[in-house]
């Protein structure tokens, strides 16, 4: 059986933690094995011994069960010299991979889920922002997103209004660009790479490319893990588990324009692994 999402790229391992013995894992429900060959080259094999295509990028090993339409996306900002590249480490979440991405695109939850860090009452208002599906790159983009944050980053001191841009280049990956406190002219890059194990289970590999010479690496990792683990307790408690793509099941508002565009884009491409199509 073939379906559109099998021709996309997915992260399956952190390169710094990939060894000869490798790891047995799942991709879109299929058992695969990711490892290094005797020459140190990463290889991904299916159960019947078939080698899958691979790419090493953004600190992770990427693969696809099918034939990707295009090269894995790039993040030009991440190549700028002077950035610290941070492997945050895998976190398993019992949720739909699409719900994991949608949560990442959302700012309205900051005051309630990341209280006193990424948001705080009474600063709950989400101002209008721009959302588009860019036809040339076939990506979802949200720009001119603003939110008041008590502690936007490990490097932030005190509350600031943070600017955000969101980008969905793949059905289970999202990149966010946010105000970089030490370098106001640049954007910090924070990514959520989601490996869909099944329709209701995923391994999430957050990854970051930050300008920050002050904060120790471990503190940056912990900050991001703290934030993501707060999200995890939400993600494991949404009903239905799968992302409803039919309008009517859930009620969006203006603050959810990114999620509305993401759902529309998923539907357009038949990216429905982890989605619920008929309202139950």
């Amino acid at each position: 059986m073939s379906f559109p999402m099998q021709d996309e790229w997915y992260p399956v391992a952190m390169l710094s933690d990939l060894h000869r013995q490798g790891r047995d894992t799942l991709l879109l429900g299929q058992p695969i094995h990711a490892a290094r060959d005797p020459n140190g080259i990463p290889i991904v094999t299916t159960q019947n011994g078939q080698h899958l295509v691979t790419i090493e990028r953004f600190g992770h090993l990427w693969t696809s069960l099918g034939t990707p339409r295009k090269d894995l996306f790039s993040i030009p900002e991440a190549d700028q010299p002077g950035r610290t590249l941070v492997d945050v480490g895998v976190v398993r979440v019992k949720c739909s991979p699409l719900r994991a991405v949608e949560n990442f695109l959302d700012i309205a939850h900051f005051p309630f889920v990341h209280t006193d860090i990424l948001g705080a009452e009474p600063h709950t208002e989400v101002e209008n922002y721009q959302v588009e599906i860019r036809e040339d790159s076939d990506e979802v983009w949200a720009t001119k997103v603003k939110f008041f944050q008590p502690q936007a980053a490990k490097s932030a001191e005190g509350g600031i209004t943070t600017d955000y841009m969101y980008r969905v280049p793949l059905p289970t990956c999202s990149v966010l660009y946010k105000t970089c406190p030490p370098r106001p002219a640049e954007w910090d890059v924070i990514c959520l790479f989601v490996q869909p194990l099944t329709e209701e289970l995923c391994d999430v590999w957050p990854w970051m490319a930050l300008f920050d010479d002050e904060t120790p690496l471990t503190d940056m990792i912990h900050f991001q893990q703290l934030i993501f683990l707060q999200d995890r307790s939400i993600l494991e408690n949404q009903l239905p588990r799968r992302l409803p793509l039919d309008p009517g099941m859930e009620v969006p508002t203006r603050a959810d324009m990114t999620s509305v565009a993401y759902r529309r884009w998923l539907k357009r491409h038949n990216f429905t692994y982890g989605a619920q199509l008929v309202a139950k």
Partner: protein
Amino acid sequence: MKLYDYVLSPSCYKVRLLAALTDTTLTLRPVDFHPGKEHQSPELLTLNPAGSIPILEDGLLVLTESSAILTFIAAQNAPQWLGQDTPQMAAYVQQWLSFSHRLTTTLGSARLIEMLHGHGDLAALQHQGIAALRELEAALVQQHMKGATYLAADRMTIADIACFPYAALAPDGSVSLDPYPKIRLWMRAIRAQPGFIEMPGIHRLHELSNDPLETTNQ
């Protein structure tokens, strides 16, 4: 006092929580537990051959068991948290400190498997974790009948701090807390303490702060 700490570690959180509730100042030394496995680095193994965190360093003193660390902090800064009013209370505290270790090895291990790619027999750990939660619930039922909310006394002691995090984070290891009404009330009472701090998976009680929309409308 220096705490070798990890944000996602319930055992380290016990120490941070008691410190917050007793106005104790800790110097935190973040340990890259995941993904870096720094707790198994030569530096940390020199301090704690068991390869676990938390580790508390105070001058020449090095402590590597969270229950001992709680005891040390309480004895130094807030002796009433030791729960030594009566022989019975002191014994109860010891019983719950020992019991807390069972929560760590069952629910804590299930959590590592379900969350951070840990290894082990998940079903067996969950089963043992449920048995421990049932004992906790039964004990809290009895305490309620006697008019007490907490494990060893009618006030919080280090016994409650030792048992609270792994019980509260049971759902991280796919163990439901729905069947335990008295555990729920007990956790709520702990979360309502002045100075309470949260950790991922244990959020604060938003009901304790005012609704800003309500005040602007009135």
